[in-house]
């Protein structure tokens, strides 16, 4: 359960919101506050007012896996293996367990062949996959993806979708500009000017957006 009460932070203004769904997609125009909401929900920033509770705890007490849109800003290590290993290493896990976690996460995301590669030699999309593997290596209770799909091709985006679907996380909070991807979520939040303008199932939310470009392309051609 994600519970937001009286939240005010930068442009965000969300009086009251409770979401029990597992796979939650956050959509809306650039600058509507999607990333800000994700940073507050993942405990990266403390809200100026109000509160966010994940699984009845403050976000700082929850294991959160974060995948940002600009992987260059979050990747710390020069070798892919070390980047993925940083999650268990920062938690002081033993070497052997760390190695197992790294290899399992790389397999899940489909990048075992990149483990020895230099991060600087990777393509933009491959960096996004490394960031996802690093987030998954921590076995997060909540997985947060901030437009992680914006540098991915269709096939790779499907793979990320599958990884996210199969993750053990209780909640996946996923901000995306792909409405076709968002249409597969359990629950949607449509944000505008810092507020959650519409929320509900994809059917409910997209029914309100039918006359805008925020409508899945597949729904348009199938009618």
């Amino acid at each position, binding site marked *: 359960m994600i519970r937001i009460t009286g939240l005010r932070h930068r442009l965000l203004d969300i009086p009251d919101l409770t979401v029990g769904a597992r796979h939650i997609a956050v959509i809306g*125009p*650039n600058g509507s506050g999607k*990333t800000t909401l994700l940073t507050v929900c993942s405990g990266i920033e403390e809200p100026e007012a109000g509160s966010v509770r994940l699984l009845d705890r403050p976000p700082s007490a929850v294991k959160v896996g974060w995948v940002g849109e600009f992987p260059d800003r979050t990747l710390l290590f020069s070798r892919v293996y070390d980047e993925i290993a940083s999650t268990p290493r920062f938690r002081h896990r033993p070497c052997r367990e760390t190695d197992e976690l790294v290899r399992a996460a790389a397999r899940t995301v489909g990048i075992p062949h990149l483990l020895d590669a230099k991060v600087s030699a990777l393509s933009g999309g491959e960096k996004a996959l490394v960031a996802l593997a690093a987030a998954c290596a921590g076995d997060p209770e909540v997985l947060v993806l901030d437009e992680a799909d*914006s*540098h991915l*091709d269709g096939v790779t985006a499907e793979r990320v979708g599958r990884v996210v679907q199969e993750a053990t996380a209780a909640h996946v909070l996923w901000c995306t*500009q792909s409405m076709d991807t968002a249409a597969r979520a359990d629950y949607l939040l449509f944000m505008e000017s810092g507020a959650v303008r519409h929320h509900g199932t994809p059917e409910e939310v997209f029914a309100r957006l039918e006359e805008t470009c925020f409508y899945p392309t597949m729904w348009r*051609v199938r009618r």
Partner: protein
Amino acid sequence: MRVDLEDLLFSRGPFSLRGSGTFEEGVHLVSGPVGSGKSTLALLLAKLLLPESGAVRQHNVSSALLLLQFPEHQITCPTVAEEIRSWGLAPEDVLAQADLLRRGDDDPFHLSRGELKRLVLACTLMRNPDLLMLDEPFSSLDCTAKRKACRMIEERKEGITIIFSHERAVLPRVDALWEMEAGSLTACGSVPGAIPRWRHAPPYLRYALDEGARPENIRLADAREALCRIRG
């Protein structure tokens, strides 16, 4: 005006890129999966990387510009207005075009990622070079901004525009399709003839083709029109 790729070969570690072909005037879309070499090809075309063998030959191209995939790599000035001036453009024009009015004095890194992309994209398009290369111009943008970017691309009257993208929902009208897979570039040919053999067609276009429709171009509107024609 045209750009010829003559038996281009470039390698880095286990990755190698090969390509031949001619980019004529018009809009070209190069699609391909992550890591297939789209950005490397863009750098080679822009002559920011040199091939091991073969050549990129530009004919009657007097200006060329490359929009980098990550807009922050292109920023060189501490304010948005200075950044725009560094492109040789007037801040008011670009700010209006990029929907960033009153943001001229801001630090470019205080813009949201979509805003930063709009800024660099507007600068690149407004410079209007003979050869315009856009590496993932639509990533980070919402659908409204993507549509505007498509309109600006379509409004270019002359020159060669090459778009490297895996965008799956909002695409401009294009003249030719190319595919990049595992470092190898293939020309699918000109549109509409190339559309049925375009393996990276976005889902809505694939759906229209599977239904037996023959879209005139690759946009969602083209797919819907073609479907209307066969469904009556």
